[in-house]
């Protein structure tokens, strides 16, 4: 135990004092915040441009429907002949020319848009809708139907969702759950890849330094391996915490100083929130409050630690099996594949149906369960499912650590051999 503590301490300090680690820790939030500011700037820049569109409306019925807005300005060129109008648009570098032909009753006018470049999709959509609305209204009127009456008789329906115990939820609650689960799963994957790799590199480093034999004449290889995994994960947690704090502080600072409206960035989401009634907003807060926070936190810890342990043991074994980092490629697939699978299953199957067969099965298979189960938990998972999943995970960790320790024990003393899977299997029996 004393040695394990010593190893953890050394590994932790070795990681934390590493120059590139320090640089990454303090530079990453800067880059991250810088990117956000940059994107916000770009978005603002883009929306500041006002497009000028010329309209040549031969029918004269639509021109009044097109109102100027922040980003579009309309110019009436109906009095000019089409060819001449085109020339004007080209000369003055307008965005384009909308041409609406003369039409008789019960037909639809021919509408054309002339432009140097293909117009934006959203812009076209808006024009089409404006014309269609006007036409529809006209045709309704022509057929003797009162448009106001139709509008007045439109019914608005909102389904109040409740579960059997009477708690009210909203559509938003699904998004809230998705967000919490998805963030947890994604975080775990990133953590495994970043710090698992770090464990692997540190094993390879000890091999290439040839210090390994000196160390394991004092400590058991399994202690060295565990110490490495734990020390590296502590360094990882340190880095994560610094990232969150620094990132948060800097985001606040930047948004205060530069006055950049961070909310403006999430265009559609922001609009959605704007459109929500106070009632719905309240509901959202309640949805978040009603998530099983304690369960979420505990299971997050269990799956986070379990998943990280499982994978970093594999990473350690890979590091022990090879002589240098280039040789690790052939063993990377079995690590990356289940991680990716977990993320994809999470983002597609779980969101579609959190309790479907696919979601359930993948939240049981130990290599994918940490990610998939973390995504499922906000939607409510039966306790026995959790129990089975965690039990399977723990059993697998025990097995994988045992196998990894064997490969590790033999591998760290092997030099100059490029091992195959067959070779690794043989090592298990040494």
């Amino acid at each position, binding site marked *: 135990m004393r*040695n394990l503590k*010593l*190893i953890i301490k*050394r590994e932790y300090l*070795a990681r934390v004092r*590493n120059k590139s680690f320090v640089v990454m820790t303090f530079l990453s939030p800067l880059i991250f915040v810088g990117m956000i500011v940059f994107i916000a700037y770009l978005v603002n820049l883009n929306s500041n441009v006002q497009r000028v569109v010329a309209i040549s409306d031969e029918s004269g019925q639509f021109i009044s429907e097109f109102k100027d807005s922040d980003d579009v300005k309309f110019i009436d060129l109906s009095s000019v002949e089409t060819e001449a109008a085109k020339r004007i648009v080209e000369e003055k570098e307008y965005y384009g020319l909308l041409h609406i032909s003369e039409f008789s009753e019960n037909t639809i006018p021919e509408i054309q848009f002339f432009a140097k470049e293909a117009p934006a999709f959203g812009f076209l959509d808006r024009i089409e809708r404006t014309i269609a609305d006007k036409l529809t209204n006209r045709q309704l009127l022509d057929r003797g139907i009162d448009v106001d009456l139709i509008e007045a008789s439109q019914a608005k329906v909102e389904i109040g969702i409740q579960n059997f115990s009477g708690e009210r939820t909203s559509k938003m609650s699904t998004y809230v759950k998705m967000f919490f689960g998805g963030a947890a799963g994604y975080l775990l994957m990133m953590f495994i890849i970043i710090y698992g790799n770090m464990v692997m590199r540190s094993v390879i*480093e*000890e091999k290439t*330094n*040839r*210090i390994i*034999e*000196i*160390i*394991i*004449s*004092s*400590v*058991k*290889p399994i202690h060295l391996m565990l110490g490495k995994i734990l020390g590296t994960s502590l360094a990882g947690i340190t880095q994560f915490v610094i990232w969150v704090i620094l990132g948060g502080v800097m985001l606040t600072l930047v948004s205060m100083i530069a006055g950049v409206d961070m909310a403006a960035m999430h265009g559609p989401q922001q609009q959605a929130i704007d459109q929500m009634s106070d009632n719905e907003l309240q509901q959202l807060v309640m949805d978040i409050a009603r998530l099983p926070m304690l369960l979420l936190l505990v299971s997050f810890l269990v799956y986070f630690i379990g998943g990280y342990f499982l994978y970093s043991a594999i990473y350690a074994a890979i590091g022990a099996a090879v002589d240098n980092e280039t040789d690790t490629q052939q063993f990377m697939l079995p690590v990356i594949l289940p991680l990716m699978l977990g993320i994809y299953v999470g983002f597609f199957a779980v969101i579609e149906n959190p309790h479907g067969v696919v979601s359930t099965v993948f939240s049981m298979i130990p290599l994918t369960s940490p990610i998939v189960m973390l995504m499922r938990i906000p939607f409510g998972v039966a306790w026995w499912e959790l129990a089975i999943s965690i039990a399977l995970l723990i059993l697998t960790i025990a097995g994988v650590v045992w196998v990894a320790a064997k490969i590790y024990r033999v591998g760290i*003393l092997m*030099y100059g051999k490029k091992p195959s899977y067959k070779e690794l299997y*043989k090592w298990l*029996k*040494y």
Partner: protein
Amino acid sequence: MDNLLVAENISKQFGTFTALNDISLEIPEGSIFGLLGPNGAGKTTFIRIINQITMPDSGRMLLDGHPLRPDDIKHIGYLPEERGLYKSMKVGEQALYLAQLKGLSKAEAKERLQYWFERLQIQDWWGKKIQELSKGMAQKVQFVVTVLHRPKLLIFDEPFSGFDPVNANLIKEEILQLRKEGATILFSTHRMESVEEMCDYMALIHRGNKLLDGQVNDIKRRYKSNTFEVGLVTADAESLRKELESKFRISDTEFKSINDDLKLQIQIEPSASPNDLLIYLTGKAQVNHFVEVIPSVNDIFIKTVTTNA
């Protein structure tokens, strides 16, 4: 003399490859024991079993009369052949870490390190990183770390490789000093002259089998062939040579001398006495040089390994 380390019928297989085949050895307390063998003989595997890095398939390893326990690593100091240190860690910190892994407390480790660093005159390396040191300098640090916890048994695997002659000699003196202080030393090497110079006992293993072991002098006695190297001054070298040829098995030899006319190796019957040969020779010529030919460890090594190939 008591045996500090006893290996009883140690065998180890790696897959189909036999690394050690039923090896039994006894290493007396306070001795310097040379473990010899060509590359791939199984020396390193044997040493790793002593260090409990590798477990034997069968057989027992006894230290101080009891089977090896995990705790025994405190009593063993091991300088492996494949040795290195953390490149980006400072010398002092690293030495402290390795010493603490051997069970020393931090304060104790620091005190002893200071003693050793002063003794080897490397105090000013304390704050340097290993990557700033030369290979020989790093090896001095490794040596200190190996002996720091005052182990009963010291194992050196090719200790002198990588040292320049001055430092090799320094380390040799330190090893002899440690033996004086009571340590038992196991050498693994294929550099015969260091065995010749330092070892009391030796064992030779080849392809996992022990070919011979025992006290170095005993082994030499076993391998000697009652041959004497003589240098004679005589007026008629040719006739004397013919006369000797008819009585003994002789061969020409070469050694440095000022005025010998005849330089020969003469082999006598095991039962015969060297004195009789000397008396016979003094009657024929002036004897300037009369030395028994003792086989070097190198000769024994080559002879044993090639005859068992």
